[in-house]
């Protein structure tokens, strides 16, 4: 086995033996993934709770309203007493409640106007507004039904028509209206819904791989601090072999972490086919190589762990921002032009093509070439910089 591999194996072994380091780096992708799952993995349609104070206990129409609300799949009903509701509103525990006042049903029965009251703090909150809108819709339907009943009753006034017949007739009108509405609303689906997982996951993966820059940037300085760098330089290990060894170790670390992230996404979100998963791994490997090479360039010139960390973090953040991880970059803009210098741009585009758009490695030839080129050029540049840096060789 040649020396770069032995150097890489030693580093990987050290990484695997350091339980704290290992736990952190293996748990990090799991934690990132858990956050993603929390953000995107849950129910994507609305589901809320209507907090209701019903003072019209036993009333026909209040009971009907609550039954109709309860039938809605995206709404739960929680009944509260008035003091309880006021207290929760006061303490910001709730932002909106529906208050059904006393005599609500009686008023409707006698044809009087009845009121439903929304009590809210501020604008009632986003969920409160949606819940209120749903309740308004249900109340509107009840209102419509009662009006039709009233009009039919008036139209048939004086006739020998029972209440049951009246209701059957009203329901027939309403059913016909529902089947053939005067204003028909048609929903046309254009393409599939934007899936937040496939939209954001590629960006999270690339951001994650970029951590390799910081880890690699510190590697030579740490060796120097321990005194082992100087000792290694007196052996038959060449500087080039040392750098290749560190490069391989950094790729391995970055790849293991990315593999965990991709595998979790495969299992939980099922966003991969076996082929796209394999292609994503190849891409992750090449991007990890590019990030590691950039880290080595920093490592070859810095003289302290602090400067290594800060330069790497600054570079990583700049790369992430320019790569469009946190915000969309408009095609043709100045920022889009500048973003071409960020390796993250190419990695994001490539992951997006493979994960979100179902492309293959053949579709991301340019991106792979750029990332591979950065890996090779970075490795060569780091060797040159180490030679010309003060005290270098």
């Amino acid at each position, binding site marked *: 086995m040649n020396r770069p591999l032995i150097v890489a194996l030693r580093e990987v072994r050290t990484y695997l033996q350091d339980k704290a380091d290992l736990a952190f780096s293996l748990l990090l992708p799991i934690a990132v993934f858990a956050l993603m799952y929390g953000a995107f993995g849950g129910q994507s349609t609305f589901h809320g709770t209507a907090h209701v104070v019903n003072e019209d206990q036993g009333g026909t129409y209040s009971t009907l309203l609550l039954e109709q609300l309860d039938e809605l799949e995206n709404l739960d009903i929680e009944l509260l007493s008035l003091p309880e509701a006021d207290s929760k509103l006061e303490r910001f525990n709730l932002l909106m409640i529906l208050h059904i006042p006393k005599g609500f049903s009686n008023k409707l029965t006698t044809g009087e106007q009845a009121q439903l009251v929304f009590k809210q703090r501020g604008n009632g909150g986003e969920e409160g507004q949606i819940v209120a809108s749903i309740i308004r819709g249900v109340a509107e339907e009840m209102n419509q039904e009662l009006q039709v009943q009233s009009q039919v009753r008036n139209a048939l006034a004086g006739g020998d028509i029972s209440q049951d017949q009246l209701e059957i007739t009203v329901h027939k009108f309403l059913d016909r209206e529902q089947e053939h509405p005067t204003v028909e609303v048609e929903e046309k689906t254009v393409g599939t819904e934007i899936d937040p997982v496939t939209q954001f996951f590629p960006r999270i993966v690339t951001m994650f791989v970029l951590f390799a820059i910081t880890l690699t940037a510190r590697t030579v300085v740490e060796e120097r601090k321990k005194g*082992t760098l100087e000792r290694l330089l007196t052996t038959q290990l060449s500087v080039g072999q040392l750098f290749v060894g560190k490069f391989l170790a950094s790729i391995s670390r970055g790849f293991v972490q990315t593999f965990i992230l991709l595998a979790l996404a495969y299992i939980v979100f099922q966003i991969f086919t076996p082929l796209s998963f394999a292609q994503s791994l190849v891409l992750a490997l090449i991007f990890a190589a590019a990030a590691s090479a950039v880290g080595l360039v920093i490592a070859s010139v810095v003289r302290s762990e602090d400067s290594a960390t800060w330069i790497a973090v600054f570079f990583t953040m700049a790369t992430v921002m320019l790569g469009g991880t946190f915000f969309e970059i408009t095609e043709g803009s100045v920022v889009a032009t500048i973003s071409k210098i960020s390796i993250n741009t190419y990695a994001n585009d490539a992951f997006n093509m493979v994960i979100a758009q179902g492309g293959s490695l053949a579709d991301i030839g340019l991106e792979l070439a750029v990332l591979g080129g950065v890996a090779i050029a970075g490795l060569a540049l780091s060797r040159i910089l180490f030679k010309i840096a003060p005290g270098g060789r």
Partner: protein
Amino acid sequence: MAKTFLVGQDLHKSFNEHKAVNGVSFTIHKGEIFGLLGPNGAGKTTTIRMLSTVLQPDRGDVTIGGYSMRHNADAVRSLIGVCPQELALYADLSALDNLVFFGRMSGLSGKETRAQAMANLELMGLVERAKGKVDKFSGGMKRRINLAIALMGHPELLFLDEPTVGIDPQSRNNIYETIEGLRNKGMTILYTTHYMQEADRLCDRVAIMDGGQIIAMDTPYELKSQIGAPEQITLEDVFLKLTGRSLRD
């Protein structure tokens, strides 16, 4: 006549405006223990770093075993072993793994490395702790591992930069005995220390450096003879007479 193994010729090294080494020349014979002594900042460590190919001299050259450091540094590296002043070890690895790793870096095969690593651990009295993690070792044990690593790869010339700093008498004695054993086997050693008694005991010849230059070079006996009766004079007396009593920080 003893065969010359190392030749340092007119070595110069500056760091910014500071001349750390200023025209140092000396030779070391095959099988000799050569002491390089001097107060703090005299230029000993810079000289060793140049001799061991870590630093390139601004001027001058070093020839080891007939190979020029400037023209054939790889060949020079195949002949040397370095025990640096600081503990240059991987604390998270076992003693054996440290030796094996540096053995492989020194060009040994896997099988050969393991055999030599065990032999060196035995030499240092650390066989029972071969699989123990180095960060759990005492200072003396770490020093012995530091020396054991320098012996990996069958070096012909060993650089020992203050190998006994901060250790207990037992570990120090073990290192002395090891060095004497190596000399008996014909190994050439360049030794630096602040302990004059140690240099007197171990070194065949010593060079005393100050201000980046060699100010005296001879056998300990001859150096002592220059200022009085050698039996009544210590090497420390010689050292203080030559380098003065002012503090060097």
